[in-house]
């Protein structure tokens, strides 16, 4: 059964320097509050896996948490570059990082294989694509039945997965709704997991028998953090703060303005600061 913990305790217990981790959420339900806690606790040398690094990894990379980033689309959606990601990769600030780059299909399949306990993922992909020239983790296998050449990538295996969801109950059973991305796969591919939630309720019912639910015994820690996905969104609670995503371009462009923002909004704040975002724009 998942432990219901404070965010500081959950990160303290489940995340170590040097871990391979994924903090997932496909535009929706990105665990920003947890990302800020990782920054406050000063975790280092993390291998960060995420299909779209987004602002959450831009912030963590800019604060020196990352050693390696595995990703498939590294931009600020609809806006432009992730400036802190680029500064670390291109100029080594605040530290040098390495990258491993895939396509979305490859990463989605690799999460699926990780959850399934398989060593690798197989799919029809990367045909004529140059990523396979620069990424040694992209290989080919022949179908043993038809001989068709297919792409293969290693399964994603995580020390820890961190995700955000709408609801959990007192036993730590977790319900995801809306765009569910690869969160379920990430948690099932991880040794340890933290799920931050908008609400802790007596019962998840009524829900569809086919709802996306992670049983509490598959989750290490559940943390109540209302608004914890801001500036991404939590369907049914608050909308995506698109204006903030636009503002991030200017905030993150220079090292000084980035550090000033982090000082004010991350280092001097705690998870309670996220609650203000609930319902503000819903």
């Amino acid at each position: 059964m998942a432990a219901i913990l404070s965010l500081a305790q959950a990160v303290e217990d489940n995340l170590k320097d040097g871990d391979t981790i994924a903090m997932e959420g496909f535009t929706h339900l990105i665990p920003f509050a947890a990302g800020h806690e990782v920054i406050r606790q000063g975790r280092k040398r993390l291998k960060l896996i995420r299909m779209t690094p987004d602002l959450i990894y831009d912030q963590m990379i800019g604060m020196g948490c990352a050693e390696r980033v595995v990703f498939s689309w590294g931009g600020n959606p609809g806006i432009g570059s992730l400036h802190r990601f680029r500064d670390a990769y291109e100029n080594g600030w605040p530290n040098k990082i390495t990258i491993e780059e895939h396509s979305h299909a490859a990463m989605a399949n690799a999460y699926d294989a990780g959850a399934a306990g398989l060593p690798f993922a197989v799919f029809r992909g990367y045909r004529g694509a140059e990523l396979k020239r620069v990424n040694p983790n992209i290989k080919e296998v022949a179908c043993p039945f038809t001989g068709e050449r297919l792409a293969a990538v290693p399964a994603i295996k995580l020390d820890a997965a961190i995700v955000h969801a709408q609801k959990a109950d007192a036993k730590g059973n977790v319900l995801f709704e809306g765009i569910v991305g690869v969160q379920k796969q990430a948690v099932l591919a991880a040794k340890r997991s933290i799920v931050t939630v908008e609400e802790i309720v007596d019962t998840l019912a009524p829900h569809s028998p086919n709802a996306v639910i992670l049983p509490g015994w598959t989750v290490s820690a559940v943390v109540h953090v209302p608004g914890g996905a801001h500036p991404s969104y939590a369907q049914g609670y608050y909308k995506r703060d698109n204006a903030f995503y636009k503002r991030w371009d200017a905030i993150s462009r220079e090292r000084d303005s980035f550090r000033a923002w982090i000082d004010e909004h991350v280092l001097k704040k705690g998870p309670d600061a996220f609650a203000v975002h609930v319902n503000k724009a819903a």
Partner: protein
Amino acid sequence: MSERIAMRADYTPSEMMTIAAARALTNDDVCFVGIGAPSAACNLARLTHAPDIVLIYESGTIETKPSILPLSIGDGELCETALVTVSVPEMFRYWLQGGRVTTGFLGGAQIDKFANLNTTVVGPYEKPAVRLPGGGGAPEIATSCGRIFITMSHKNRAFVEKIDFVTSLGHGKGGDDRARHGVRTQGPTKVLTDLCVMEPDATSKELRVVSLHPGVSREQVIESTGWCIKFAANVTETPMPTARELNVLRDLQARTKAAHGAAA
């Protein structure tokens, strides 16, 4: 000529590009939609001549009918207006890889004469002059959809002789090169820019101009293309945007702007 220029002033080249792209879609299409110009074109088609078109976004939303254009590929609007939302692995495995998408829409920072696209780096991969966001869904969209439409603003730094990185396969080195990569889908069948429409030659697969937008000269296209661009035997003029097309597109963009909020 003066009359045509006066009429051209009523719309922008970018609007012409979006409208030309929307017209290329049919009511029977199942379309895998990217953010930006493709999303505008697909929704314009849905709101005008193709009301039953099926729009799929890679975040997992199937048969979505957004009233505003999403800023990101997974905005809540897409899920709230969808028939169903599936997980991202299911989207890429069953729906895209499964061959259920007729048309994919792509764009990029660079394109070559065989419609190969680069969204990864300008310069060498290991030491890029400009690091771009990367492939995202594009490498498999390019090979799994029945056909591909490409929309890009027509500039000679984007339409280049040699792209720096092949993020997604177009017609490769031309001819039957796609088949040599084991790909059976058609690949890029149209490139729609703010100046013209291009289609690959049936045999060589090299892009050639088939239609010029109203008021655009051959010289403009030649100057804006980094390779020696060819023209089809019969180059037509793209029909002018209609009042309805322009009104629906502008309403869509005004609603979108209001919903996303201004950048501070």
